[in-house]
């Protein structure tokens, strides 16, 4: 071991032995510190992971969705619009979508009813998302009865349950065939919820949207890039809200840590005097204190971050998933994929380790430069 490392090791030994003298207090500090890092890191990792997942999943969403607006509200769109669009350059395919919501008073949950484009479902049957199956305790072969828009009872037989590893996008889905859908909601033939267009060349999407708004003035196009942007912003905003809520406790901790780290007791001042008198340099004293701050904050950072990693990616962020997911009855059960953004981790590291270390070292500066003969007086 080089002289430099050996010297740092001695300083670390001393500073840890000093901390060990007030074990309870210092462990308590470390615990609170770790908890703060844990909460921040959990929010960060969870939001980051969801953001990445939303981006990857919705890459496959339709390039353009055309909604009809009536008096400022989303309305059904006639199939004739498909013909009016005709042959817009760049549009590879166009089709009408049928989907809507159904509020199930039995469990106070909102379902999303949807007609799949390329899958035949027998009349009177449905395919349910894993979230619905769990909430209502359903399996293939079970029946579920809903009251339709006209007040009649519709009994659907569960033909299948969607894969549970796709719950993030399908927890509340309820797939039925077109005829059942129209009969259940009372939607006339020739009407769709909205239209979806496939545009192969991403460069042409904006052009297509411009043409559509001229051709169909009572519609608004929703582009896939807007969808992706919406989700990108959403998780940033949710993360921001949690950070704001945490700011209060963070501030309390900062005050506590500042007081703890910077308030030098007479006892500590005397010890610094002793160390200087027996031959420690001012720089040694400052380095020793630096190690105290660095080790405590690094320890808290590592503990907090590791706990957060396990919490988010192995325990599905169980602690505050309800907060981030909203107030829905149907929670999708899913395990976030471990997407970690190096820059975010670096930022977290900087904002947790650096201030505490500075708060420890700065006040020592003055005490360490006092004359060593103070201990003689």
């Amino acid at each position: 071991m080089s002289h430099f490392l050996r010297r740092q090791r001695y300083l670390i030994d001393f500073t840890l032995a000093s901390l060990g003298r007030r074990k309870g207090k210092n462990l308590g500090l470390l615990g609170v510190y770790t908890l703060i890092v844990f909460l921040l890191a959990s929010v960060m990792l969870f939001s980051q992971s969801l953001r990445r997942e939303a981006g990857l999943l919705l890459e496959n969403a339709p390039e353009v969705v055309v909604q009809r607006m009536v008096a400022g509200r989303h309305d059904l769109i006639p199939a004739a619009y498909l013909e009016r669009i005709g042959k817009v350059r760049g549009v590879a395919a166009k089709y009408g979508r049928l989907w809507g919501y159904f509020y199930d008073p039995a469990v106070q949950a909102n379902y999303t009813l949807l007609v799949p484009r390329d899958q035949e479902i027998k009349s009177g049957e449905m395919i349910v998302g894993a979230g619905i199956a769990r909430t209502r305790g359903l399996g293939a072969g079970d029946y579920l009865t809903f009251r339709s828009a006209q007040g009649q009872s519709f009994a659907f037989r569960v033909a299948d349950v969607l894969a549970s590893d796709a719950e993030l996008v399908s927890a509340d889905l309820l797939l039925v065939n077109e005829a059942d859908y129209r009969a259940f909601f009372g939607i006339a033939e020739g009407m769709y919820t909205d239209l979806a267009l496939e545009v192969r060349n991403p460069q042409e999407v904006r052009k297509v949207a411009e043409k559509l708004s001229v051709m169909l003035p009572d519609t608004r196009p929703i582009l896939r890039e807007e969808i992706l942007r919406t989700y990108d912003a959403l998780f940033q905003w949710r993360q921001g809200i949690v950070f704001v809520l945490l700011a209060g406790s963070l501030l309390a901790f900062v005050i506590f840590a500042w007081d703890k780290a910077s308030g030098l007791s007479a006892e500590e001042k005397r010890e610094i005097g002793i160390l200087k008198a027996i031959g420690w340099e001012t720089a040694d004293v400052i380095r020793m204190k630096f190690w105290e701050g660095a080790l405590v904050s690094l320890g808290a950072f590592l503990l907090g971050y590791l706990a957060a990693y396990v919490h988010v990616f192995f325990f599905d962020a169980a602690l505050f998933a309800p907060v981030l997911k909203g107030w829905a009855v149907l929670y999708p059960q899913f395990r976030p994929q471990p997407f970690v953004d190096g820059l975010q981790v670096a930022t977290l590291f900087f904002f947790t380790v650096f201030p505490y270390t500075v708060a420890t070292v700065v006040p020592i500066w003055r005490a360490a430069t006092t004359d060593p003969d103070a201990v003689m007086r």
Partner: protein
Amino acid sequence: MHGSSANARPHRPGRAGTVPLLLLGAGLLLFTVTLLDAAWRGNDTALASSRQLVARLGLTDLALFTEARYTRHLSQADRHTAFQDHPLALDHFPSGSLVPPPARLRQP
């Protein structure tokens, strides 16, 4: 235990730094492991079935917030949809998350 016999080797007490430094080293190691784990597992293979479903059904949104239509299909909603669906729905706009819906909407 110590100094009991003259010929005993000099007493070598544990250094105060040993255990904490070892723990810190283990922590750093685990930290690296998380980065490796993220690099290894953090891709879209586990999302394959969801991605396929999105493409097949033409889905536009995540089923994260199913309480109301403007949160369920966030990207399809407009600014004025709030308070029209679930009577207990909370707005996804900042003010909506901080202020509860009007009392008359909360009656069953």
